[in-house]
């Protein structure tokens, strides 16, 4: 534990700005991954443990696209759509057969894919760390803010994620698709009886969730180095976010992601070795006080 | 006092619905009482309140001279109250005999024993006795989930009986049965009651059955006790006729 360092940082505005912006970035990426996770759980009742690997795939897809086209925007599109397509195929072929099995079966299918995808990435992209570098579009001088400096890309990432969160909540709460999604979350049979193609709906939701993870990977690419293990840690963290926010709640995921991001950023100064422990302790506390999470609905 | 069940001012609300509304009832030791009432009248809720599964908002439940409100469900079971459920509640993978033996273990406080093998020979013998009592000996070796609907209801009752209760609550023992089977079941229930010294309270929708075997009847309606007395008295009660016939014409007394 390093309390003096933490106090030092808190008393300096430039350090606070740096840490808060770092925390926000972590939070935004976490939200993108966790919102997909929570959406899939809320509607399909499946915890997609491969979600971290989807994030990783998004990053690598965008890396390749960036190297080929040289355009970062193409890279983001490639990462998001590529993973969305992959997610739909994955859901149809491997997840749908275990919808009615117990949780452990679903868990194992996901686990198998975590192992497989990690190795596939190793085979295709190699085991070494890879970096995309800051795309030319964002290679601008940092923005001066509250006595600190913030890279422009951070602002872009945060803005984009907030926009995504907003569109997502409009999509779920205001559109016909959202109505179907919410209905499916409550009673799938009923929806089938009403003539809705629920298989299609499930695939769409899974695809949307995967798209978010892929986009997160692509957005992380300029600021994170890539390695075949990158899926694991984000999986655990986004899982914590999902649980703290309330499984199935998108607003919950947003707040929890920001919270965890900030804890992470400041914890890495004060308790570098214990930040994981801190997050798990926080999660345990939330579970014990309110098992359905901060924003979770009461379970029937 | 043993085997007397007295309910005083029992009240339970679910949001706006009063499933039990100031209910006062008394069941004498060794009596056989039917509870009737339309769907949603609060009959099952009353059982849940008595058995301690639900906590009442107000009121008292006196079992053999002790107020049991607030006690955990298992404590109430240990004080001699057991029940069978509206939808048979079983252990699907257990054979009939295993399930009963397990209930006997529970009765004998042997369920946590680690040093011996399940089932204890004595518990098995006792399980056999209960099986014969309800007439399930022919299917003793079958898995509970493979039993016919009627046998499942019987097994549920047998599980409750294996606890040697002083007060036995049966929630619609004839639910979902054909006419013939209903009468057979109710005859069995009646025999069980007359052979054991227990206070038996059962919920029943079939008025003919109720008037045939019950000593007395309580009518519940919207959580309130609408009428009580002998079958003859209840049958002639205008409020009851109103509740049963009037309910369809939507003139609902609240």
């Amino acid at each position, binding site marked *: 534990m390093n309390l003096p360092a933490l106090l030092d940082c808190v008393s300096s505005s430039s350090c606070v700005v740096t840490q808060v912006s770092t925390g926000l970035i972590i939070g935004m990426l976490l939200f993108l991954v966790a919102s997909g996770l929570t959406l899939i759980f809320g509607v399909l009742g499946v915890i997609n443990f491969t979600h971290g690997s989807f994030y990783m795939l998004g990053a690598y897809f965008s890396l390749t696209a960036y190297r080929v086209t040289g355009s970062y925007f193409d890279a983001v599109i490639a990462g998001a759509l590529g993973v969305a397509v992959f997610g739909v195929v994955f859901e149809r072929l491997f997840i749908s057969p275990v919808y009615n099995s117990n949780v452990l079966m679903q868990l194992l299918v996901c686990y198998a894919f975590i192992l497989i995808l990690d190795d596939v990435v190793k085979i295709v992209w190699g085991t070494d760390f890879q970096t995309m570098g800051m795309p030319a579009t964002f290679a601008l001088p940092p923005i001066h803010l509250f006595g600190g400096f913030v890279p422009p890309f951070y602002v872009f990432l945060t803005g984009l994620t907030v926009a995504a969160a907003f569109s997502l909540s409009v999509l779920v709460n205001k559109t016909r698709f959202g109505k179907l999604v919410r209905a499916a979350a409550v009673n799938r049979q009923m929806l089938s009886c009403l003539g809705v193609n629920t298989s299609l709906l499930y695939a769409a939701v899974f695809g949307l969730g995967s798209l978010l993870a892929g986009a997160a990977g692509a957005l992380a690419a300029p600021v994170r180095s890539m390695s075949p293990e990158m899926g694991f840690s984000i999986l655990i963290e986004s899982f914590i976010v999902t649980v703290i926010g309330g499984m199935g709640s998108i607003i919950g995921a947003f707040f929890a992601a920001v919270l965890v991001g900030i804890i992470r950023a400041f914890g890495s100064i004060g308790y570098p*070795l214990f930040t994981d422990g801190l997050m798990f302790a926080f999660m345990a506390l939330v579970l014990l006080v309110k098992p359905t999470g901060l924003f979770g609905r009461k379970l029937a | 006092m043993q085997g007397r069940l007295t309910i005083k001012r029992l009240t339970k609300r679910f949001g706006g619905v009063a499933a039990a509304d100031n209910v006062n009832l008394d069941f004498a030791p060794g009596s056989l009482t039917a509870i009737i009432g339309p769907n949603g009248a609060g009959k099952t809720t009353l059982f849940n309140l008595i058995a301690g599964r639900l906590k009442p908002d107000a009121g008292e439940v006196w079992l053999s001279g002790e107020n049991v409100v607030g006690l955990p469900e298992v404590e109430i079971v240990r004080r001699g109250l057991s029940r069978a459920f509206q939808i048979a509640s079983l252990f699907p993978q257990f054979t009939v005999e295993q399930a009963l033996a397990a209930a006997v273990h529970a009765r004998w406080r042997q369920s946590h024993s680690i040093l011996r093998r399940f089932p204890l020979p004595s518990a098995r013998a006792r399980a056999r006795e209960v099986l014969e009592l309800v007439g399930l000996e022919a299917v003793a070796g079958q898995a509970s989930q493979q039993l016919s609907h009627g046998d499942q209801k019987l097994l549920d009752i047998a599980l409750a009986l294996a606890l040697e209760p002083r007060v036995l609550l049966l929630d619609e023992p004839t639910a979902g049965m054909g006419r013939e089977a209903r009468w057979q079941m109710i005859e069995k229930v009646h025999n069980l009651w007359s052979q054991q010294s227990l206070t038996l309270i059962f919920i029943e929708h079939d008025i003919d059955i109720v008037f045939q075997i019950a000593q007395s009847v309580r009518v519940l309606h919207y959580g309130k006790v609408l009428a009580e007395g002998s079958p003859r008295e209840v049958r002639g009660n205008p409020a009851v006729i109103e509740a049963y016939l009037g309910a369809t014409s939507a003139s609902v007394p609240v």
Partner: protein
Amino acid sequence: MALSGCLVVIALALTLDNPQFADFVLRLSIFGLYALSLNLLVGYAGLVSFGHAMFFGFGAYAFGLLMQTGLVSIPLAFVVSIAGAAVLAVSVGALCIRLKDIYFGILTLAFQMLLHAVILSWVSLTGGDQGLQGGIPRPPFLGVDLGNPKQFFVLACVFFFGLVLLVRQMVESPFGYSLRMVRDNPERALALGLSVQRYKLAAFVISGTIAANAGVLMSLYVSGAYPNFAYWTLSGDGILMIMLGGMTVFLGPIAGAGIFLMLNGIITRTTEYSGLVMGIVLLCVVLGLRRGVLDFVFERCGPWAVRRLSREG
């Protein structure tokens, strides 16, 4: 039956005198025990824990640390570590069993990761990510010298079979049947007068304590303790083992541990992409058999084999 099996293995290993085989048998007893204890919780009590490695790791570290003080004998350190694990299991279990289904699992995972974080960050005590340094001494006791590989092997096997028999007794006892009742229909169990929460807690504590036994054995065997003993991957491996072997057959988890260790051994020796192969094998088992291997075998061989093995096993 089990005893004779034990003797056969011991004799085999001693006569073969093949270190690789002995190593496999020892790891099998450690992880078999670990998987068996997890299945007591998952298979029999229906409590799916994602944090079982917490007890494995705790046992290993507690024992290793006690032995490194140089003040206690092996049996004393053993008893104290197991008692400590039981205390840990009671306190964590009392919190976890308040939750149901997936939430129970997540909370166990949280506590396990908490222990992992403590191990990582308390460097002065645990050696942090390097693990317990300096080896674990094995002073002779009661005429047993665990420094001697043969004696260690025999003792570990006896220990393993003793615990397996104990668990066997437990699942076949009235207590074991009460756990099944709590798993299959907790409402009915409650209405029969079983204190459901107490049974869940008991299962949690017993299962955790047995996992701690496996942890102690592990730390003795590898003469150390490492943070990954308390990491979620080991919890996951435990679930993998019981799913591979089968949850409904008593010996399933042990078979699963064996399959897992063999697979792992073969795969890591033959290919550099072990995850790929392991993942594909897993998919085949899960989507192909849709149950553990022993479950599958027993369903195929019919009730005859089930009766035979459950009588003798």
